[in-house]
């Protein structure tokens, strides 16, 4: 199964290198897999039985003995995967050990991502894509979808001349707003109110099964948005999901607040290629949970926007801020090692340095990671967290100090007031689609006056100001942008 992180990483690189990215899908993919077992299925409604096979002569009813795997069988996904994996091997593709849905042909420089029957192909030229396209068409029944526009419900828009790419889930967001009857809500500026402190429901309160299910489905639908292109709601979603077991009205208010934030920003999404740098960030908030456990989070930015992020309540209670940061760091190290593996596999070694570097805003945690000396305050820290020392020693991870005000991962550990929330959102590469479109008109104007050698920093400042003007803009600004957004 393709992970969202892998597709984002691939898109970030494609956008940077101006690769072609095409989508294809395999028609009735599972029918390509041959079954090894004997399985009988009743004759489907509407299938006519040939006259010579009609019941006469047998005392047994007729049934379909399956030869190919069909949808719904337990072994279907496996047989299909085995089939297409074999095909890729023949055509000289290597499977990445870090993500089994990622295949690379080094000789031809083609990267291929498989999600069940959806295929994404990225390559430097259209000829290379056509080569694999022909091979695929020869082997399977395929549909060509042209340049990749959506993948798993994420909408992808590119601006090839500016080498930028925008990911959003506006259609999905509109759908869940409707589903949870929140489309007429009053939009909010941030996903979580920093004055509200959530607690468990009182022991006497018991949510009905129906309420529980409704709550969990609301949180689940928010979580999918969060996983796809919305790191800005990660903290809020992880917070509300901790109360899924017995939600009362206070928890509902917080869930609704996230919907209200999405209602105001349905077109916000990750924009790659505007601010050129990559980096890792990790942060923790000590003992902020109602059970005194800490919240840790991290983000990795590549080509100007986040490709991986996480916000999670830690599983053990930390005794100090440093310890909480250290535990969060160990999570980030695991992700960084994995990302480095993928980057190496897709041949993007130039970015290893950026992903290797993790920013921490706690000197104590950095000191603890750098030298393994015995310390009365740290002797209890579990061995599992110390694997990161090894990586720091081998320099597979480098640590940098970063002041709290610039700590992007702060957004994953607490509810932030509006100004700092916006600042960190922009640092994660989140930009409204309208601003992304604006870039085009800016580009047009600039063909006359704009210097082509604008540094990435210049452009990032530009986008920052655009974002700010959006915040204060009037109704007209929105309504003239909206028709364009609808088509996108």
């Amino acid at each position, binding site marked *: 199964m393709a992970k969202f992180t892998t597709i984002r990483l691939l898109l970030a690189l494609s956008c940077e290198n101006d690769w072609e990215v095409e989508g294809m899908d395999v*028609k*009735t993919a599972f*029918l*390509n897999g041959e079954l090894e077992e*004997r*399985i*009988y*299925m*009743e*004759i*489907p*409604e*509407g*299938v006519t*039985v*040939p006259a010579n*096979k009609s019941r006469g002569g*047998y005392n*047994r*009813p*007729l*049934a*379909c*003995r*399956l*030869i*190919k795997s*069909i*949808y*719904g*069988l*337990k072994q*279907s996904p496996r047989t299909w995967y085995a089939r297409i994996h074999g095909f890729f091997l023949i055509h000289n593709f290597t499977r990445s050990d870090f993500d089994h849905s990622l295949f690379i042909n080094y000789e031809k420089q083609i990267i291929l991502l498989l999600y069940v029957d959806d295929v994404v192909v990225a390559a430097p030229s259209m000829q290379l894509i056509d080569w694999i396209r022909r091979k695929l068409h020869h082997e399977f*029944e395929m549909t060509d979808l042209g340049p990749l526009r*959506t993948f798993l419900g994420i909408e992808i828009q590119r601006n090839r001349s500016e080498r930028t790419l925008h990911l959003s889930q506006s*259609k999905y967001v*509109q*759908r869940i*707003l*409707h589903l949870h009857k929140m*489309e*007429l*809500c*009053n*939009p909010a500026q941030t996903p979580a109110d920093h004055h509200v402190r959530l607690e468990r429901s009182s022991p006497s309160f018991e949510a009905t099964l129906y309420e529980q299910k409704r709550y969990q489905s609301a949180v689940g639908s928010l979580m999918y948005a969060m996983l796809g292109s919305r790191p800005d709601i990660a903290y809020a979603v992880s917070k509300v999901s901790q109360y899924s077991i017995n939600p009362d009205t206070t928890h509902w208010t917080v869930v609704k607040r996230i919907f209200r934030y999405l*209602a*105001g920003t*349905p077109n916000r999404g990750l924009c790659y290629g505007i601010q050129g740098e990559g980096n890792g960030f990790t942060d923790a908030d000590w003992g902020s949970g109602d059970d005194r456990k800490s919240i840790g989070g991290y983000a990795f930015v590549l080509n100007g926007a986040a490709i991986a992020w996480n916000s999670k309540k830690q599983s053990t209670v930390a005794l100090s801020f440093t310890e909480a940061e250290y535990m969060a760091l160990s999570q980030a190290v695991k992700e960084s090692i994995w990302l480095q593996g993928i980057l190496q596999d897709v041949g993007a070694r130039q970015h290893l340095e950026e992903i290797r570097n993790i920013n921490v805003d706690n000197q104590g945690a950095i000191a603890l990671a750098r030298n393994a000396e015995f310390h009365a305050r740290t002797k209890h820290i579990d061995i599992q967290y110390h694997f990161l020392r090894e990586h720091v020693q081998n320099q597979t991870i480098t640590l940098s100090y970063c002041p709290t005000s610039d700590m992007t991962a702060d957004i994953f550990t607490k509810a932030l007031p509006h100004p700092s929330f916006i600042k960190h959102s922009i640092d994660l590469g989140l930009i409204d689609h309208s601003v992304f479109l604006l870039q085009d008109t800016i580009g047009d104007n600039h063909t006359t006056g704009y210097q082509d050698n604008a540094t990435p920093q210049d452009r990032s400042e530009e986008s920052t100001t655009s974002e700010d003007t959006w915040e204060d*803009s*009037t*109704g007209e600004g*929105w*309504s003239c942008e*909206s028709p364009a*957004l*609808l088509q996108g």
Partner: protein
Amino acid sequence: MWKPSGLFASQTQFALLAGQEEYEPQTLTDALNCNERAEWRAAWESELTSLAKNNTWVIEPLPEDRSAIGCWWLFKKKEDGRYKARLVAKGYSQQ
């Protein structure tokens, strides 16, 4: 109480437009009798052809020691407006 704010008015209209739920038939009979029966029939027939072309199964008498698992038709409207029919086996009844 919802207050229409100038900033987000157009967004609300967008939400209303996007929110209209589309009808998807639950059974083959529904599909072939509803308003969009022409589209559903085309989708269903194309799926049948594809099943036949791929030699998905052979029809034969069911051995006495075996039982047949069930199956049903699923009808889905894709986001890009395509109509899709798909035959799905009830894999959960497999042993």
